[in-house]
């Protein structure tokens, strides 16, 4: 079961910063689930993580927001 990083209620760009810091704690290739609010957070954060070199594996609706499954890559 991958780590879950709950960033619901955290606004841009703080949500991205916290996602980045949390992912940087992982080993390359490890996966984590990030919970994000609908709207700006889910349309911005996954894209930014991809630009950092991570891979977005899946995005599903969960609990009024979205669960984003990410595999840590190399920047």
């Amino acid at each position: 079961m991958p780590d879950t990083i709950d960033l619901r209620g955290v606004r841009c760009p703080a949500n991205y910063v916290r996602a980045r810091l949390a992912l940087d704690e992982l080993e390359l290739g490890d996966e984590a689930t990030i919970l994000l609010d609908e709207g700006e957070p889910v349309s911005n954060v996954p894209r930014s993580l991809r630009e950092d070199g991570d891979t977005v594996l899946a995005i599903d609706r969960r609990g009024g927001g979205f669960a984003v499954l990410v595999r840590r890559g190399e920047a």
Partner: protein
Amino acid sequence: MDEKTLKGGGFIKLRGADRWAVRVKVLLGDMNVAQLRHLADIAEEFGDGEFHLTVRQGIEIRGVRLTDFDAIHARLAEAGLGTGSCGARVRVPVACPGSAVCKRGLNDTAPLAREIDRRLYGRENLPHKLKTAVSGCSASCAKPQGNDVGFAGALEPVLDERDGACIACGLCAGVCPSGALELDAEGRPVIDLARCDREGACVNACPTGAIGVARRGWRVYVGGKFGAHPALAYEIASFVDTSDALEIAGRTVDAFERLGEGRERLRDTIDRVGLDVFAREVLGNA
């Protein structure tokens, strides 16, 4: 030299005896450290110690004297700098940083802004000033709709149909502002280009890069202005490439020179002759 000539050379009369400002041209709002240092040296030598940042990305050196007109021009040229135009001329384009810097930006604004500047900057014999602006996307931070000629970056999206490219997350359908994107039974996007406003929201939101760019282009506006009676521009072309955008800009200035009367802004000319007539002049058979 009369005041008009001086304004053409970027000298603006301020309140007070022999008190002038020199307007320095800062294309795209970009300067390097050496230029800014050099500018500080010039201001220290010739000005009263103050700078002013204009609303159109220029810098003015305050409190210079008329007798230093030639010396200031020569000193600016040493750092590759020049003066900005004033009066009834084509002004320095305003531009946002565009896709080279901005995460939302769709197009690079520098090539278009630089070419507009190279071809049209300072043109005279116009009824009034003519302002241009280049925005990298429809967010319109450079206010292209508030300028005589404006451009907003746009793009045509395309889906990478290869297996695994799209993870069927559906974010694209949620962000499309024009209702041009629906999801198929597998949750993959189907893009209706006939309804697409080319704002690039789907490309920007796609977390895997499966929605990419087929073509980039520009939405073109004419006739926007502020002043005492502000008016938003007319959209004259919805998606043209950079070469056509430049052609339209050039023809618009030509048409303003040919059709303009008295001291009117481009907007007044367009409304007097009619948008359809003006569009034919500017677009030709394009």
